[in-house]
């Protein structure tokens, strides 16, 4: 398992292709916060997002913030939500907007593996609940769009040493979640036999 540093947004697909499931990654640059309602608006209501998502790193989040002025927010506590609810948007994010990385907690089910491989995308696992630490790694909330969806707006954060993240699903068809789950199901059969 290797350790990498990746700066987002990425322009070179090799930055994504070098990552393998299980690797440790620390992220620099800019990341975009997104959540259920944000993606329902983009894909189910067909409204174009007012932010450039090409090469982007998306974070599944709905932050605690304090409003300072028009469009300006101070971070209070920013953490990450369960990804599985939003798996169906993966392909659209890759095909229509060129998103390269999706980060959340708890993993994506197996249906994300094929589109991520085809489109050169990765899923990063963050440590769920570790929001106090995550907040210190977000330097500033630079932009916010769709404030009426508060807190499920589109957020642009500038980050420094964001992580450690674990590559949960890579762009080569590898998934830690699939591997862990299939081993656990085998183990269950063995346990059931002795109950």
């Amino acid at each position, binding site marked *: *398992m290797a350790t990498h540093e990746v700066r987002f947004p990425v322009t070179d697909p090799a930055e994504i292709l070098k990552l393998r499931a*299980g690797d*440790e990654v620390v992220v620099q640059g800019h990341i975009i916060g997104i959540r259920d*309602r944000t993606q329902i608006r983009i894909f189910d209501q067909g409204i174009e997002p007012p932010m450039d998502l090409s090469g982007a790193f998306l974070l599944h*989040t*709905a*932050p*605690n913030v*304090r409003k300072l002025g028009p469009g300006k927010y101070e971070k*209070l*506590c*920013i*953490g*990450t*939500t*369960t990804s*599985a609810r939003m798996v169906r948007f993966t392909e659209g994010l890759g095909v229509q907007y060129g998103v390269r990385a999706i980060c959340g*907690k*708890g*993993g994506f089910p197996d249906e994300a593996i094929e589109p991520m491989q085809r489109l050169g995308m990765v899923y990063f*696992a963050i*440590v*769920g*609940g*570790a*929001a*106090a*630490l*995550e*907040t*210190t790694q977000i330097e500033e909330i630079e932009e916010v769009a769709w404030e009426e969806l*508060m*807190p499920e707006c589109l957020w642009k954060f500038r980050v420094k040493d964001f992580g*450690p993240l*674990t590559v*949960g699903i890579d762009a080569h068809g590898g998934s*830690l*979640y699939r*591997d*862990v*789950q299939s*081993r*656990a*199901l085998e*183990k*269950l059969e063995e*346990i*059931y036999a002795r*109950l």
Partner: protein
Amino acid sequence: MSVVTTDLDTAVADAAAHLYVWALKDIPQDLRDALRDAAGRETSVTGQRVLQTILRNVSVAEDEKNLVCQDTGIAVYYCKVGEHFPLHPARIYAALREGTERATVEHPLRSNTVHTLTRENTGPNVGFRVPIVHWDFVPDWDGLDVKCVPKGSGSENMSFLKMCVPADGVTGIKKFVLESIVGAGGKPCPPGIVGVGIGGSADYAMHLAKEAIARPVGTHNPDPLVAELEQDLYELLNETGVGPMGLGGDVTVLSVHVEHADTHMTLNPVAVNYQCWAARRASAHVAADGTVAFERDA
């Protein structure tokens, strides 16, 4: 810490406001110890990465006086009301609601509560039938114990109920708990506390499972048969290899707590309620004279 006030409504509201924020920031010692022990025995690289990050996060929350987790949850309170406590439960409820609202606005905390159909936000973590309060009444006593358990949705979404049949027996109970936790994978933020409610009725089994997650790590059910089931499940679940955040490893759960009730001869209900590693809870005792004593580890 203790505070004296003469107005009981205010005392209860103040206690609720303090408990809600405190629970979100300062996780109990039993949990800190359990997480440290988990890091001591985890052998996988990803599992260590997760557990070390968790421990770092707990200390950053303390240093920065920030919330441990951004999910401020749905406010749940457990109240034990003495029969001679001078404030009626209807007024206690109003005070808990006021305290929740005030904490949310003043801190400020993220407002999570929405109408269940329209999904529109209903305000500062209060709404129709929210906060959720569970009641217990104690004879020959004039005090009030309030425990605040603001539980996040990642783990609450991993709640499961099965109406096993009597012929499924204890084996059926164990299988259902195992398949539930393996199926939940990394979603409920493992390693956490698995609450299991058995017996009673469908609704009561889930109530008991929820009560079970609010117990300190290291406590055991006083009934030796049930305590044995807790230990068996703990060992079996940690054989599954789900590991910290579902990324694989030795430590899948920190603890298993089982609560039970007698049931109908044809029923065998099993409810599972998962509590994430950030198992937040804080308690207060309100005396009849309005004195409030806070206790983190109850």
